[in-house]
């Protein structure tokens, strides 16, 4: 069982995700270069953080047209588990796999800190190992993480239980305190915090571990 990790020019958390999955969880991974189309044998796909294509135009806007993402989109459509972390979340919204957009932090500062999150797993299979209302700590590291969507759509997302991760103390001005969103089916999760940086107790906690473990089950 192998997990695919998408690599764009400008990705910079691809190796962190590999280290978390292989080093901490003993799970084999395969890097998927942005021009590849072959997802054969992959059980789950992770779109990691970074600055795909230099964040030109908008974060994730150019990545959306990468050949590999056409296949990832089809994979998600078949119910395959897809996880987008940070820039990966931005890419998922640009692809239309998740609604809304991630915009410049209200403070204009790049934020690199630990955040408290409230988990409401709902139907999200990535969060299956967390309990409803549980609070966890994960690091964030982003300049454009302010979630934006029209109020009616946010209302619908809330009603359907798709707002699965919420900031306890909103750091960036996200509407609805949104830190992570699931699709309705529960197989696609996008989140701004970095679970792969919270898998080893020596580097600041293991609250992200149960999330990545879902890629292995």
């Amino acid at each position, binding site marked *: 069982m192998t997990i695919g990790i998408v690599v764009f020019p400008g990705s910079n958390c691809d190796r962190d995700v590999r280290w978390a999955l292989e080093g901490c969880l003993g799970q084999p991974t395969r890097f998927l270069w942005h021009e590849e189309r072959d997802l054969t044998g992959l059980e789950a796909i992770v779109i990691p953080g970074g600055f795909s294509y230099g964040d030109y135009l*908008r974060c994730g806007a150019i990545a959306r*047209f990468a050949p590999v993402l056409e296949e990832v989109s089809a994979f998600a459509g078949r119910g395959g588990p897809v996880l987008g972390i940070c820039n990966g979340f931005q890419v998922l919204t640009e692809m239309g796999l998740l609604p809304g957009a991630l*915009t410049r932090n209200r403070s*204009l500062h790049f934020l690199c800190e630990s955040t408290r999150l409230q988990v409401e797993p709902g139907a999200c299979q990535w969060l299956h190992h967390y309990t409803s209302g549980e609070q966890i700590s994960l690091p964030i590291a982003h300049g454009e993480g302010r979630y*934006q969507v029209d109020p009616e759509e946010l209302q619908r997302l809330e009603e359907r239980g798709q707002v699965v991760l919420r900031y306890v103390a909103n750091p960036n*001005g996200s509407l609805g305190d949104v830190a992570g969103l699931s699709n309705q089916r529960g197989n696609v999760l996008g989140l701004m915090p970095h679970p792969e940086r919270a898998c080893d107790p020596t580097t600041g906690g293991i609250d992200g571990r149960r999330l990545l473990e879902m890629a292995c089950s």
Partner: protein
Amino acid sequence: MPLFHARVQVTLRPSVLDPAGEATRAAAARLGVQGVQRLRIGKSVEVALEAPDLAAAEAQLGLLSDRLLANPVIEDWTLELAEAE
């Protein structure tokens, strides 16, 4: 094939907070420029495009603006288009 020159203006939708615009507005006041009530930052994209006619050029630029240059969730766009001299 005729050549068309286009300028696509991409602006944040009015409902979307523009923190960079707000910071610039505050700096305008510190510069001594008073009375700036609104300052929103957008993008201007210049495009030179070959197309059979004006209508075809407009259709191509509409697709380009809607699907790539702007994200309709947070942005609006307008198009200025003319055939090159």
